[in-house]
């Protein structure tokens, strides 16, 4: 098949994946998640364990070392069948703590320590790099096989160029679908579904090739078995030490690999799916391994001497002239490689941005955490990290020359990430595990692994000199990389695994026993280990009432986005029995907010950001008692008291608020009469004085004209005031006649802007609009709505105190309602005044500038109530911000 056609075919396949991902994202965005979160999709997404290594490499492995390849499948099978309760606990913790990655889980468990996050991130990146290189290599190899296999003898022009294109394309796909949402807990539905599709493709491809080899070439099961018996090249001897080591390391890897953790814990977060996955995933693995040995044996028999067994899955059908089957096999391998790289780079990018970039940025520019747009920076960091991760993989691929057997590279990566396992398991089962212990264990394990496995892999005299190989580090004989402490004769992999696991675990346990955990660490430890106890979200140490809710809201908006943050705060305010957008900053609420933010930027960063607003976390006596878990009785009793106390506090708060409001209303009632009097008497004074002057006569005509005009103006002012008062009283009584019709929002805003331009016309006033969003039709009373818009725009023109006044009008639609926001860039309205601006005559500044009677917003509120909507003040948006909400269709009131 011509190379160009192959590339075209691949592109079509990728476009199809794009479509699948895109449709899934759209479905999820519309809230129709349904089967997107089913156990089946979950299980299929787990198949990301099977990369190009298992797709191509397993056959090569079987051809070289016989049955040993089975261990790679046995490890995960044992974990899923025997250790499902460990996985279940991980998934539950992941959901409760809104964990974003394995580094985040460990950092969060050990007191939200960022040091640990950095260490785990480092291990993951170093271990994953060869693995990503491996995927690039296999895709490049398979391209090369196809290219050289053409009858035209057409050769692949440049293998490195192919690898660059593959890496670049994968980076693009990952960025497009992996970094659209910020909150990792919002989940990448598109990516997960694309991966599930790829899982099916690779299984079907491998089974098809296997069936063809057994029944098409081999002549049926019996004949193939006979050939396997007779085959001489692979040896079938089982080496117990290597088998045990491989099963252990692949079992550890299936938990600790960043991509496995991503699909297993971060993407899903529903432990009920584990019921299906615990048997279906091993079954998938079994199917994947079913035909490996036949393909290897027949391949060795049929293919010419010296051909690469790693490519038998592809070269066998090609050699037999089955181009279509070879194409399917190619797609299978392509799927395995791409799905692995996409998820792995998403997982690694999340770690790098949350544990390296964000903390650095917070430290270098602590101010910008409060003022800058955090979302943009996090997303940018993730995108750059994805590119960096893939670039690292490419560089490694170039360095390693692309010639090494696939299996060797994969095993090194497995052994690397397995170093995280002792700390992970210790962290979720052992309360005594401490941060210092975790750091010690990880550091020791990582160093031993690097020294005994990673660095020697490059061969003598590349990274490590030959002298180190023969005589040990610094000439110390017991520090030889492949014979630590003088133990010789072990397989290098088993040797490295044994020493790294032993020293890692020993360091972790010993240091943990001799150090003491800090307060936050203690509480997180309890929350993790006792995750299945009711109410184990963990006691929190945020002090009551220290945080300013508006500051929290501003920060939350910068991370979660405006809408999400506002609805979160609004919901909490309602739960506390308050109106508006600002709830009290109770410790519960702050802790919940921290967990929500942790879902976006990781536990350590979220903790640091909240601390900047709330101050240091304090640990109360009750918290420590709960942690110590002394007696169930004390806890129960204190919990009861606590509940009662909170209930009382809430009731008292609601009463206080109601009382405050009544008091203010009574003061306003009083002020109302006085205000009416003032507003009527002022124009009356001018009218009376000038009309008396005119009556006396004997004035020059221009003076008469001037005084006549003043009388006229003041009379109009009086009329307007009376109109407003009448309007308000009609609106308040609900006896208003609405003139409902189909109106265009954009036209209404045009009308309102034109009418309001008479207010302070001398000022240069910029209006920012979103015309496409505005062009929609509503069924409502257009004149009344324009009245509200005019009021809000005139207010902005009057009161916006910025040097370059600016008003932004934005329109959004949500669940059958339209929201029109008017946000200016002035200094906004002080918090204590926000509650009264909609009351009658509630004018905040002096009246001469205002010109009106202070009834505008009161009328707006009544108009919107009549239109089935509302007008509210939105705090924390920079300047003064008003939101008009109304339904698309207003039905006529029943008479």
């Amino acid at each position: 098949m011509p190379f160009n056609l192959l590339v075209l075919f691949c592109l079509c396949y990728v476009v199809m994946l794009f479509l699948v991902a895109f449709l899934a994202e759209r479905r999820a965005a519309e809230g129709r998640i349904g089967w997107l979160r089913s156990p089946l999709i979950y299980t299929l997404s787990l198949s990301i364990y099977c990369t190009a290594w298992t797709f191509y490499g397993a056959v090569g492995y079987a051809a070289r070392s016989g049955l040993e390849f089975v261990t790679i499948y046995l490890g995960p099978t044992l974990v899923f069948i025997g250790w499902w309760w460990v996985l279940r606990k991980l998934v539950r913790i992941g959901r409760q703590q809104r964990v974003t990655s394995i580094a985040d889980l460990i950092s969060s468990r050990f007191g939200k320590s960022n040091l640990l996050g950095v260490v785990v991130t480092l291990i993951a990146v170093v271990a994953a790099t060869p693995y990503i290189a491996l995927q690039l290599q296999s895709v490049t190899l398979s391209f090369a096989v196809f290219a050289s296999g053409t009858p035209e003898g057409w050769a692949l022009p440049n293998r490195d160029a192919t690898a660059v294109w593959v890496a670049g394309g994968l980076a693009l796909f990952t960025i497009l679908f992996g970094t659209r949402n910020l909150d990792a807990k919002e989940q990448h539905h598109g990516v997960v579904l694309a991966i599930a599709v790829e899982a099916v493709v690779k299984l079907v491809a491998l089974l098809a090739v296997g069936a063809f080899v057994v029944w098409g070439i081999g002549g049926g099961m019996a004949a193939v078995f006979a050939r396997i018996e007779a085959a001489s090249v692979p040896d079938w001897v089982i080496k117990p030490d290597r088998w045990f080591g491989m099963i252990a390391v692949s079992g550890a890897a299936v938990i600790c690999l960043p991509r496995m953790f991503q699909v297993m814990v971060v993407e899903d977060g529903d432990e009920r799916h584990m019921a299906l996955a615990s048997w279906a995933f091993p079954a998938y693995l079994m199917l994947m391994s079913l035909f490996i040995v036949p393909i290897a044996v027949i391949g060795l028999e049929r293919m010419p001497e010296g051909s690469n067994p790693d490519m038998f899955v592809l070269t066998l059908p090609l050699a037999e002239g089955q181009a279509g089957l070879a194409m399917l096999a190619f797609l299978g391998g392509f799927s395995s490689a791409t799905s692995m790289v996409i998820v792995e780079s998403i997982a690694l990018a999340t770690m790098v941005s949350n544990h390296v970039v964000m903390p650095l940025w917070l430290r270098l520019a602590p101010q910008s955490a409060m003022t800058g747009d955090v979302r943009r920076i996090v997303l940018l960091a993730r995108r750059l990290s994805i590119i960096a991760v893939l670039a690292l993989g490419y560089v490694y691929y170039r360095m390693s020359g692309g010639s090494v057997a696939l299996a060797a590279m994969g095993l090194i990566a497995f052994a690397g990430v397995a170093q995280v396992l002792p700390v992970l398991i210790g962290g979720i089962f052992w309360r005594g595990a401490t941060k210092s212990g975790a750091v010690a264990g990880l550091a020791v394990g990582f160093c031993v692994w690097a020294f005994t496995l990673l660095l020697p892999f490059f061969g003598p005299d590349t990274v490590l000199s030959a002298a180190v190989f023969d005589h040990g580090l610094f000439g110390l004989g017991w520090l030889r990389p492949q014979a630590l402490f003088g133990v010789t004769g072990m397989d290098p992999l088993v040797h490295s695994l044994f020493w790294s696991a032993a020293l890692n675990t020993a360091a972790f346990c010993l240091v943990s026993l001799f150090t003491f955990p800090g307060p936050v660490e203690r509480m997180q430890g309890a929350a993790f280990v006792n995750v299945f106890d009711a109410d184990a979200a963990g006691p929190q140490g945020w002090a009551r009432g220290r945080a300013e809710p508006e500051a929290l809201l501003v920060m939350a908006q910068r991370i979660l986005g405006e809408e999400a943050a506002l609805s979160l705060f609004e919901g909490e305010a309602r739960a506390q029995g308050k109106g508006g957008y600002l709830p009290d900053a109770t410790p519960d609420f702050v802790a919940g907010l921290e967990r929500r933010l942790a879902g976006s930027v990781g536990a350590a960063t979220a903790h640091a950001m909240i601390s900047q607003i709330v101050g240091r976390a304090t640990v109360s006596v009750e918290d420590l008692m709960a942690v110590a878990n002394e007696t169930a009785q004390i806890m129960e009793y204190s919990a009861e008291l606590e509940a009662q106390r909170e209930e009382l506090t809430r009731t008292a708060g609601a009463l206080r608020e109601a009382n405050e409001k009544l008091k203010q209303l009574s003061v306003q009632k009083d002020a109302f009469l006085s205000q009416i009097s003032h507003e009527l008497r002022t124009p009356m004074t001018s009218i009376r004085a000038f009309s008396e002057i005119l009556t006396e006569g004997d004035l020059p005509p221009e003076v008469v004209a001037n005084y006549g005009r003043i009388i006229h103006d003041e009379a109009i002012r009086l009329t307007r005031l009376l109109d407003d008062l009448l309007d308000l009283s009609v609106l308040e009584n609900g006896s208003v006649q609405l003139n409902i019709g189909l109106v265009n929002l954009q036209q209404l805003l045009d009308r309102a802007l034109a009418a309001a331009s008479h207010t302070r016309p001398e000022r240069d006033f910029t209006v920012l609009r979103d015309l496409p969003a505005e062009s929609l039709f509503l069924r409502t009373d257009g004149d009344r709505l324009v009245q509200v818009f005019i009021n809000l725009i005139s207010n902005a023109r009057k009161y916006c105190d910025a040097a370059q006044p600016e008003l932004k009008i934005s329109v959004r639609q949500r669940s059958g309602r339209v929201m029109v926001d008017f946000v200016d860039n002035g200094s906004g309205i002080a918090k204590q005044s926000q509650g009264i601006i909609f009351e009658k005559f509630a004018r905040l500044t002096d009246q001469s500038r205002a010109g009106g009677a202070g009834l505008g917003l009161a009328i707006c509120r009544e108009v919107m109530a009549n239109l089935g909507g509302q007008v509210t003040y939105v705090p924390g948006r920079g300047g003064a911000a008003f939101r008009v909400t109304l339904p698309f269709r207003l039905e006529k009131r029943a008479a």
Partner: protein
Amino acid sequence: MARVVLIEDEPNIAEAIRFLLARDGCEVHALPDGLGGVEAVRAGAPDLVILDLMLPGVSGLDLLAAIRADAGLAAVPVLMLTAKGQGRDREAAERAGVSRFMTKPFANAEMLAAVRDLVGQQG
């Protein structure tokens, strides 16, 4: 010729009073608000101060208290105007040392009589 300082934020009312008093032979110095404080009043060297109760920036009552506390102005008569017409305000103004209190709207003759009376008292 009597000099009158008029502090009134409604431009039309200020214009009416200025016209009335000027026709009656007074020299009227009008200020739109009380922001300049006692200094601005003193600069007008007044025989009479006419003061609105509700002023932007500084309230008429505060300004009155400041005038009474100033050695050079303590004896100057002050006529206070208000549109609120509540008894409470009148009491507060009298406590602060107002010479006369007048509710808006007023008859022009009433205003002229009050001004002549207050200026005549003084000198």
